[in-house]
């Protein structure tokens, strides 16, 4: 399939001239095979300082108790669950890209799925760390697992959404990990084959004895497809279940049937934003402009504006339903959300998630790397605020006014959150150093059909309808990695 020529009007997924399989390997493995550069070291130092801060803050919490955080009798969850949902949400893009886009044969996913999946796994690790850290007695976390026991068989409460969460997150993590690692096998084998000494041994073990035979490839394709099938429902289920942590409660502002789809859309929204944040930098620093092209960036921006708009509709729907329900607590919760003491959080959320991303309707913005990156950061902030708003502004003023309270974070709250970002980036930077950040084998599949050089050959052969050729050339203008001048004479 990949050897067939593709219609000329499709934009290329790999740009650049003289791209060979060897060049792809060399380009992508360059960061893995050379000593890290200054930029990496600076990034890693900062990130690992963050991770150390996280370690300290979490240890402090374990030592003294959750009271180290700013929570109180009224607001029992705040930055902890905000952070948890935020990280889980970020993880969603990875699974969406790897599973759903694979099933839909979206080839452009091939260059971004690896990093996105890695991001998913690290984000879920951060999220899971919040689950354990927010417990009053984390050393008893095992109680949340349905294990046989001697208490006359005391099971977990299968009615509780937190138990669904335990299943959802652990399934999500393990399936994502397996999917990611399976995809890595041919690439690890490639590193193995190019490496020497200890490195070779290590990668040899990690490659699970990949031989590269046709049979192996066949099985690899089958397993990938099966795993994609398994992961696909997870994309929808995980955040749906996370949303039931709120939706199944009595809390005004939480008790909302719209939550599952709204949360899933929000998760994909924030996940793609995080992919943009990471890849725009990685692309530049690692010199991968030919593989992660403007086409990818724009495609992701389109998904962002789509999911962002769904989120906006959800916000408005919530507000309308609160009005329409005529339930005074519900109405108060939403009015308080936007006009109460936390108005700034809600309006930050609304601006960051709904208003500002609307600029993505403009081509120029979608195709601007700087604008995209800034937007991705804004969306990340906005989505953090979304969770904060849902959790804190609902809790802090619910039914009984005597118990209304404000939440003030402590420096430990701040450290755990900033630290978790540190942990995430430490893991991601290590990943960039030891594993290929782009799925080499999968990108190679695109070379013969969807690369710029192949299409150029077709153009040069001249058997192309001239309007289509012009259309194609016109499409190339947006690519920052294409020498458009070369097409003048073709």
């Amino acid at each position, binding site marked *: 399939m990949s050897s067939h020529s593709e219609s000329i009007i499709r934009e290329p997924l790999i740009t650049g001239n003289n791209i060979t399989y060897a060049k792809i390997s060399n380009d992508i493995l360059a960061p893995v095979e050379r000593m890290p550069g200054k930029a990496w070291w600076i990034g890693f130092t900062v990130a690992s300082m963050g991770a150390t801060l996280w370690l300290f803050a979490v240890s402090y919490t374990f030592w003294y*108790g959750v009271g180290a955080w700013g929570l109180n009798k009224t607001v029992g969850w705040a930055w902890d669950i905000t952070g948890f949902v935020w990280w889980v949400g970020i993880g969603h893009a990875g699974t969406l890209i790897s599973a759903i886009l694979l099933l839909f044969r979206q080839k452009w996913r091939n260059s971004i799925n690896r990093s996105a999946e890695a991001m998913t796994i690290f984000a879920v690790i951060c999220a899971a760390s919040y689950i354990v850290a927010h417990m009053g*007695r984390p050393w008893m976390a095992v109680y949340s697992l349905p294990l046989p026991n001697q208490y006359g068989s005391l*099971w977990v*409460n299968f009615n509780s959404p*937190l138990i669904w969460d335990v299943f959802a997150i652990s399934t999500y993590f393990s399936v994502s990990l397996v999917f990611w690692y399976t995809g890595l096998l041919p690439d690890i084998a490639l590193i193995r084959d190019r490496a020497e000494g200890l490195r070779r041994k290590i990668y040899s073990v990690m490659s699970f004895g990949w031989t590269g035979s046709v049979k192996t490839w066949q099985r690899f394709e089958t397993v990938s497809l099966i795993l994609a099938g398994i992961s696909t429902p997870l994309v929808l289920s995980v955040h749906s279940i996370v949303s039931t942590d709120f939706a*199944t409660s009595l809390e005004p502002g939480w008790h909302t049937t719209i939550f599952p789809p709204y949360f899933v859309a929000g998760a994909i929204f924030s996940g793609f934003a995080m992919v943009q944040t990471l890849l725009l930098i990685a692309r530049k620093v690692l010199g991968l402009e030919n593989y992660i092209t403007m086409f990818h960036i724009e495609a992701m921006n389109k998904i962002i504006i789509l999911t962002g708009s769904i989120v906006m509709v959800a916000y408005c729907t919530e507000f309308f339903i609160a009005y329409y329900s005529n339930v005074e607590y519900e109405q108060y919760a939403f009015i308080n959300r936007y006009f109460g003491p936390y108005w700034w959080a809600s309006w930050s959320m609304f601006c960051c998630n709904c208003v500002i991303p609307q600029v993505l309707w403009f081509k120029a913005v979608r195709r601007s790397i700087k604008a995209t990156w800034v937007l991705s950061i804004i969306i990340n902030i906005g989505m953090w605020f979304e969770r904060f708003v849902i959790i804190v502004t609902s809790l802090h003023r619910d*039914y009984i006014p005597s118990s209304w309270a404000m939440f003030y974070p402590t420096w430990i709250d701040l450290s755990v959150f900033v630290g978790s970002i540190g942990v995430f980036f430490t893991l991601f930077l290590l990943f960039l150093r030891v594993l290929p950040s782009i799925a080499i084998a999968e990108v190679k599949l695109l070379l013969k059909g969807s690369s710029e050089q192949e299409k150029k050959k077709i153009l040069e052969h001249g058997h192309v309808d001239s309007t289509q050729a012009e259309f194609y050339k016109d499409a190339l203008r947006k690519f920052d990695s294409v020498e458009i001048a070369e097409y003048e004479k073709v």
Partner: protein
Amino acid sequence: MDSNKKYWKGLEELNKTPEFVEKNKHEFAEPIPIEEVLESGGLLGKTPRRDFLKALGFGVGAVTLAACEKVPVHKSIPYLIKPEEVTPGVANYYSSSYDGHAILVKTREGRPIKVEGNPNDLLSNGGLSAQAQASVLDLYDVSRVKNPIQDGADSDWDHIDAFIKNELTAIKAAGKKIRIVSSTINSPSTLAVIADFVAQYPTAKHINYDAVSYTGIIQANQNSFGKAVVPHYNFDKADVIVSFGADFLGTWISPTEFIGQYVKNRNNKSLQSKKMSRHIQFETGMSNTGSNADVRIPILLSEEGIALVNLYNAISGTTLAGSKKLDNAAAENAITLAGKELLAAKGKALVVAGSNDVAVQTLVNAINSLLGSYGTTIDLDNASNQYAGNDAEFVEFVSDMDKGDVGAVFFLGANPAYDYHSGDAIKAALKKVRLRVSFSDYTDETASLCNIIAPNHYYLESWGDANAIEGYYTVVQPTINPVYNTRQAEQSLLVWSDNAVKDYYTYVRNNWDKNLLAKGGLSGQKGWETLLQTGFVKAAAKPAGSYTFSHELTAVAQTILDHSNELAAANGDKTKVQLQIFQTIALRDGSRANNPWLQELPDPVSKVTWGNFAAMSPRYAKSLGLEQGDIITITANNYSIDLPVLIQPGQPAGTIAVAVGYGRTKAGLVGDKVGENAYPFHTFRNGTFQTTAVATIKATGEQSELAQTQTHHSYEGRNSIIRETTFTEYKKNPYAASGHFDEHKTYSLWDEYERPTYNWVMAIDLNACTGCGACVVACSAENNVPVVGKDEVRRRREMHWIRIDRYYSFNEKGSLITKESEINQLSDGDLDNVSVVYQPMLCQHCDHAPCETVCPVLATVHSSEGLNHMAYNRCIGTRYCANNCPYKVRRFNWFNYWNDSRFDNYLNNEHTQLVLNPDVVTRFRGVMEKCSMCIQRIQAGKLKAKMEKRSVKDGDIKVACQQTCPANAIVFGNVNDPNSEVAKALKSERTYYVLEELNVQPGIGYQVKVRNRTELEA
């Protein structure tokens, strides 16, 4: 074709040489050097296998042993010879007395762990105040004095006795005065001991000195009727009560008793017979009593006197010289109408005033006399002995000391260095006294100025008696051996006065045998034993005589109006305010400031814990540019303190109110440096200590957040939380406010729980609850609820299982004044006109509990008796249950409050931990807790019934909050039994369930609040 080819390995095989044949016999071509290895160096190598194994075994063993830290051993000594009356696990109750109230002290394995009201107590029928509930904790206070102290060093009793006797002899010989200064003593035995002491040392004299004094009332009664007493008030006999700043439900004279009386005319029983008393309160600072009033008129301090004079005029129909109209038209109208209502209820009316001014109290006497209150609502013949302080005598004593006339002073329950308005004068004067003895069990402000501290027993370690009301004698008996090396003060006095009776127990016995037992128809050993069981004797009450006031009032009115003018001088000056000094319900006069339960008990009105404040009206604060928490400097009487501002609706502009009882410097670990001392703002005027002054205030620009347990003060029109009505409406349709006349069908997604035998529920009457907070402390004592301290309260983390929500509502309506309803219309207006409602809130034990469904580990589950259980050991602390609780009654252990050095103000020592109720576990950090409906009491009640082979009777089991409630606002019981109190209470037309529409099916029914007004204005 078969191959016959033969392959051979070498020529040797082909040739079959003998060497080859020989070698080929063996398995290995060449022998393996096993023997060599075994015999030579093989096993002697550096690390032979066995040594390696030995080392490994030892290493692992050693590491394992090292890792096994010894489990901490708590040494306990079993009862080798079991005391007859002690059965481990079974509580013993001893009757005793606190503040003249008969009480029961619950002891477990020899240690008192809870104070409970004696259900037969004549004053409060088993109700107890927060102070009484908290008193048990002080027994275990590590700040108490542990040995007698001479000149700051530990001493022993023999040495001290010898020293004091020598000194007394010398002082007696020198003819110098000896003074025993005490807070009011009404114990007949103690008074007798003091009398004996005075007989031995004729220059001695006993002075009653109360930090918060009622001399004004005593003196006024002396002047008016020739009876120098605090009368016994009967609020239950009053249909109309008008109070001028008297906080009789909170702090005034005998509040626990008055709550019971007051509620009698306002509770369910009274309402069902269509009867409700009417209570009008004129006051400045919002008091607990004012917050319960049907109509509360905020007036300036300077207006109080004028208002009283005008009320007198209105009732008597005369006009006292100097009378003038109030500038405050609303108050003026209210006075006129109050006068009419009082007259209409003649004989069933009562006017009280909180002032300690003789003139004010004299005028009040005159009014009450006109209303025929004497002999009905006021009883001068069976007077109260609760307060007998004589301010003038004490002031004279201070000047005597200053002149050097006093040779010896004994302080018994008095701490004037802290609570006298001029502590410095005391300090200076005391230096001139040769022998200064304090009986205090703390090295308090006064004791630290004394050369001898002869620490008294705590009341739970003492013998004694009390006589709070004429004819009502209660006994005090010890419930534990003295914890420290203390000695009862009376014993010390007996020793020092060489009394014939050497032992105070014998002295008490003799006194009772001789004088008191007979009053209750008892006698002899048997009578004494009966007394120890019943706790009190009651002599037949004298008939309450009717007294008529017949004195000239011109001078009295002039004194009152003069003072009003003095206070009014503050008006119009932006830096000057009228300052009122009051007591908080929790700390009262501050003598129990070292009690963390009381420090953390939220003030009913302000909801502030851990400190005092300057209460100020919202309007006034705004005009001064002040916000809540801004620190202002208050200066009066050449004394100034810095206090944070509290925004207090209902307080008139131009006034501030400051509580005494705070600012202790030598109270102990807990009470030191909590708030500021407001006692020096008192003035000695017209022979009494007075609580009003003109002060100047200045903003400091600093801020200090108040530790409030509630920061939102209105209920947002949510009438499924608070339902209230007016008495008129109620009479028209009792169901109107509860909305229960048209039962609608409820649907449920859930299977109903089976509750075959018991279904424990509760009924809380909002119309009875006065918000006093006794239940909060009782619950803490019963259930080992931790104290968290000021910072944690500021973080909104107090742990109380029961709280009292207080909501303000403002009366804003057009002012159409018509005759009968005029008085209600008068409360219209601005933010000062505020109505208050209290709502005790605790776990509702919902039948469809939202906490239960969300707990991931089934740590909170439902019982077959309708209770919501909490399994602490299963809880992992996700806090989802608390988030999902619509009532927000679940409390999380953020830290290890009872065993964390950062929370040193509570149980962080083995000694204080002895107060813990052994039937209730302490909770580790990281678990959720909440009201269990005193499950340990339910269990105990069921076990008792089982052993007696019967089923549980209604009333067998009382939960802690219910038991202590002086208003009987809380009823607990089994609703499966249609005849139970609770089943009857819940059948009230006023019953509603909070947030009923959520269909969580709460187990606690509330009864609608009713205000005796003509229409609902809230």
